[in-house]
């Protein structure tokens, strides 16, 4: 059991930069907006009350850990979620699955006694 925990913790240590990038409300909101498809900085700034410069900084912080990337669409630069999008969903599922593993083991101990 403890070795399993150790492995999980090690994997998490590797992922600390990712968590750090995610640990900000504005950046989470940007990710949420990009989940609907690529957007320009102008569109991403709309209604946030945050300057374009600040949004750009946040996007670069997300880009540094591979969560988003930018591309040209005509004359416009757009930002898009990276395939990490799937990875977030997958990691979330892994985490919930690990909780079910723990719960199932507690159930086993409970009924097999």
């Amino acid at each position, binding site marked *: 059991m403890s070795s399993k*925990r*150790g492995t999980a*913790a*090690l994997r*998490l*240590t590797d*992922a*600390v930069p*990712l*968590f750090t990038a*995610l*640990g900000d409300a504005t950046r*989470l*909101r940007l*990710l*949420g907006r990009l*989940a609907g498809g690529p957007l320009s900085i102008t569109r991403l700034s709309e209604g946030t009350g945050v300057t374009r410069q600040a949004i750009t900084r946040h996007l670069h912080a997300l880009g540094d850990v591979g969560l988003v990337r930018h591309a040209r669409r005509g004359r416009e630069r757009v930002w898009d979620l990276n395939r990490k*999008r*799937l990875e*977030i*969903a*997958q*990691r*979330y*599922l892994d*985490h*919930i*699955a690990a909780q*079910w*593993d723990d*719960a*199932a083991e*507690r*159930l*086993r*101990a*409970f*009924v*097999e006694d």
Partner: protein
Amino acid sequence: MAVKTPAQSDTVSTDRIEKRVVLRAPRTRVWRALTNAGEFGTWFRVKLEGAFTEGSWIRGRMAIPGYEHVTLEMLVERIDPERYFSYRWHPYAVDAAVDYSAEPTTLVEFKLEETEGGTALTIVESGFDRIPLARRAEAFRMNDNGWAGQIKHLARYVE
């Protein structure tokens, strides 16, 4: 409802989790542990108030260290004695400051079958694709706090 035999972790779905365990206990015993709210609470670690009834909400405070601030709310969907039990809830709803009630729920299903040496239990949780990505990402922010201590502990252990 067809009971699918789960393949060995070959799923690429981001929508569902499926677990199958064989418990060395009679089906009646496992059924009681799942559907008697008091017994469920003992192994799941939640202090549920009331009983599981189809179509009704049941609530209780989590008793897992680090999650004591969380109130669990479950909407029981179906109770098919000794075969099938299902409910809906908000997955990983651990931020006391967030009102999750308007958000989509996931469906949790328990399926029981008698098998050689005991009872085969299949647990399925599905509907994750309807949970907003930002909410899923937030789970790691929440988690990071909880795990920070563990990482420190590990660092002490390996140093």
